[in-house]
């Protein structure tokens, strides 16, 4: 087994493990930190898939943006030491059965199809290709995405704004 391969499986296990912590952790703050590692794990997997630009984007947006947001959300919405509020969960059985449903579906799908291997292909840097694609074939979705982001920005500001008189 090559070193690369060992690293690959290690990252896989690391990702799954941290995702499991996200799911099962009692305290929301632990979940948040586990989520951080999950995201990093995903970034690693992206590297293995030859998606270097995406890996970087993943780190920047998820880790640098979304996760920070989530952490802010947690810190703003509750006192960290309020264990009761932090550890409140729905019935485990129900949740597990839900997960089970998904697992069954996925397992069925995975088992029903022949997922073929692939001859090794060179990994090329993708950044410039993505840039071209965005500005040519994907220009319209890209613009729409920008509008969406603007909308989300304004919406988020409006929603989160504290009304003047309340302060």
């Amino acid at each position, binding site marked *: 087994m090559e070193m690369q391969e060992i690293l690959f499986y290690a990252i896989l296990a690391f990702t799954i493990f941290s995702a499991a912590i996200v799911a099962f952790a009692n305290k*929301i703050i632990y979940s948040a930190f586990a989520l951080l590692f999950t995201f990093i794990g995903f970034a690693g997997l992206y590297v293995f898939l030859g998606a270097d630009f995406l890996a970087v984007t993943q780190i920047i947006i*998820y880790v640098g943006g979304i996760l920070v947001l989530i952490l802010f959300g947690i810190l703003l919405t509750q006192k960290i030491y309020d264990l009761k509020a932090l550890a409140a969960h729905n019935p485990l059985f*129900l949740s597990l059965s839900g997960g089970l449903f998904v697992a069954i579906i996925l397992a069925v799908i995975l088992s029903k199809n022949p997922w073929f291997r692939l001859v090794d292909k060179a990994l090329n840097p993708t950044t410039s290709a993505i840039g071209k694609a965005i500005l040519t074939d994907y220009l319209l979705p890209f613009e729409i995405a920008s509008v969406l982001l603007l909308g989300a920005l304004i919406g988020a500001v409006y929603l989160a704004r504290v009304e003047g008189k309340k302060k």
Partner: protein
Amino acid sequence: MNSLLPYLITAGIVFTLGIFTIIYKKNAVGVLMGVELVLNSVNLNFIAFARFVDYQLNGQLISIFIIILAAAEAAIALAIILNIYRLKTTVDVTQVSEMKN
């Protein structure tokens, strides 16, 4: 690492965990995390398929849009959560059921 299956299995497990998280957590932020997990697993699938099936960049581009979407969604969702917290001093999604009755 040069085969599709490990990626798909990983994505499947994380997806399952994401769904589980969505259902399991009462905390709205927790639910949001679950959603992020689901989105990430889907991203992984897209990129994996792009690499092993499509040989092109389409999957990666869709992933980029998903990331954009996820960012927007997270921002809005957190704003809503903060609002609910302000109004009801809770982020417990089971407590928020005004639309019922």
